[in-house]
């Protein structure tokens, strides 16, 4: 850009001096300028302004004219259309060698499964198209997806983590083979290497060996890990989650004297106080909480009409209970806060005091 700047310092100085002495008669009243070049108002600057984009201005000296270019492009597009006028190549039909049971091409299969978040499982139905898991939804038949009502048909709701976890089942970017320093190896190589490493550990009883996992509550996986630990008694197993429940567990330790996980039963709660806890959308086990919470938000008037079928009467009577009441003190807007009957937005620094205080914040 430097060659575009046409600062004429001499002119500029004269103009400023003229303005100061009131001799500038170019414009009546107060004059404004956006740059020093404009103030100087040199002939070079005027030319610069007229050309507007001196760098990018296209000089039409190209030997290929615009019209020629358009003609050529039009012809190539028209000819490209002709490439569609060919016979379809012979298509192949490749059936499986051995057909899986229940598999019908074009029809999805559903498998009951679960995904674990922070050690708490969410019951899921995995949809599989041609052997590939494509979608996860909640399993309405699982007790976790039902509320206390015996006539409840169950919910197929899921949370964002379960929805996203379909990629952990089928990720096209994930390696299909074991990698060693980014180079592909066979499974046989992997098993051979790990066996050698384990054999070296055996005399030491696994001293210095560490297993790092996420929170594992699966009985099968836990039993397998315990099996390794009995074989290598000196080895250590660590469970770690970047977003964890450690503080809640420490609180439970102080309250109950032993490390326990707190599972809330919102179907029995009449008054709920949430201290910055987004239990309706961001906690492990949030679906059960949300469903139990919502069930207590439906107020049904007593049905005394005996002409209705008996079971409906029964159902309506069962549903009659007091609505729960939700108090939320939180530091950031959440779904739970939006569902609250009483809501206070406070600074994070004030949260501890609010929890201790017996008065409402603010």
């Amino acid at each position, binding site marked *: 850009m430097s060659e575009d700047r046409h600062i004429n310092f001499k002119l500029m100085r004269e103009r400023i001096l003229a303005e100061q002495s009131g001799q500038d008669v170019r414009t009546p009243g107060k004059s404004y300028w956006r740059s020093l070049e404009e103030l100087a108002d040199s002939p070079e600057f005027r030319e610069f302004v007229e050309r507007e984009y001196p760098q990018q201005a296209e000089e039409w000296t190209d030997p290929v004219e615009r019209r020629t270019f358009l003609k050529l492009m039009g012809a190539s597009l028209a000819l490209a259309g002709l490439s569609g006028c060919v016979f379809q190549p012979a*298509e192949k039909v490749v059936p499986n*060698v051995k057909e899986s049971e229940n598999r*019908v091409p074009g029809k999805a299969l559903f498998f009951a499964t679960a995904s674990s978040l922070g050690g708490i499982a969410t019951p899921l139905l995995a949809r599989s198209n041609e052997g590939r898991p494509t979608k996860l939804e909640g399993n309405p038949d699982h007790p976790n997806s039902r509320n206390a009502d015996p006539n409840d048909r169950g919910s197929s709701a899921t949370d964002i983590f379960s929805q996203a976890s379909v990629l952990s089942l089928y990720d096209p970017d994930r390696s299909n083979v074991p990698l060693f320093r980014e180079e592909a190896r066979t499974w046989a190589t992997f098993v051979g290497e790990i066996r050698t490493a384990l054999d070296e550990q055996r005399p030491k009883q696994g001293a210095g060996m560490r297993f790092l996992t996420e929170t594992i509550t699966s009985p099968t996986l836990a039993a397998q890990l315990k099996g390794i630990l009995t074989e290598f008694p000196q080895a250590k197993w660590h469970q770690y989650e970047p977003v964890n429940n450690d503080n809640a567990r420490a609180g439970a330790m102080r309250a109950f004297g032993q490390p326990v996980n707190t599972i809330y039963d919102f179907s029995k709660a009449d008054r709920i106080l949430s201290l910055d806890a987004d239990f309706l959308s961001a906690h492990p086990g949030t679906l059960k909480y949300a469903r139990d919470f919502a069930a207590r938000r439906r107020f049904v008037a007593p049905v005394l009409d005996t002409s209705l079928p008996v079971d409906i009467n029964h159902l309506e009577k069962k549903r009659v209970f007091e609505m729960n009441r939700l108090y939320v003190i939180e530091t950031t807007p959440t779904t739970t806060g939006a569902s609250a009957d009483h809501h206070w937005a406070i600074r994070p620094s004030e949260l501890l005091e609010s929890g201790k205080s017996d008065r409402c914040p603010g």
Partner: protein
Amino acid sequence: MPQIFHHSTNALAKLTIYGAVFILVAALWVTAELNRSSWNTGQWVERQQPVQFSHKHHVGDDGLDCRYCHTSVRSCRVSRTTPTSTCMNCHKQIWADSPYLEPVRASFRDGKPIEWIRVHDLPDYAYFNHSIHVNKGVGCSTCHGRVDQMPIAYQASTLQMEWCLGCHRNPEKFVRPQKEIFNMAWPPENKTKEEIDDGRKLVREFKIQPPKILTSCSTCHR
């Protein structure tokens, strides 16, 4: 001044004008015929397969039902080609050493699927669903011809849009009772008045949509 043109020129001019019309019509006719010919549609063209499989032998002579191999024809879009394991159900025991069946045995041994050549290949812009046709009275032989008489399978119909519309406009001419769907010998088209009357009854019974819906663009071009 002598005449520039000879008398015969008149006749020549008339011939040229009429001839031009004739040539134009002939060109259109040739185009239409070429378009419908098996050269363009692939009709009647036998497809050589990796295995010398004879539908005539299996369906005509042995009397296998279509669904023994094409299992999913009533339940889904495609009438699945049979997996190698289905072939081996019988051919483990009969013709177990036949050299013709070596590709099948090799597939079963190595776990590599047989790559059959598709005989009826609709364009990709046309949606077709086997199950709706089979469940609403369109028999196999209506579209696929007498498969029980084909030593090597070929495409029995043109598979052109006018052929599809022939039935979508007049379904009563082609539907048959549900128990005759897999009967190869059933006439592919209802021709007599009684047959067409029966067809009308079947159209009502199967709740086949009226031609207005059957010929709507988005029925097939989705």
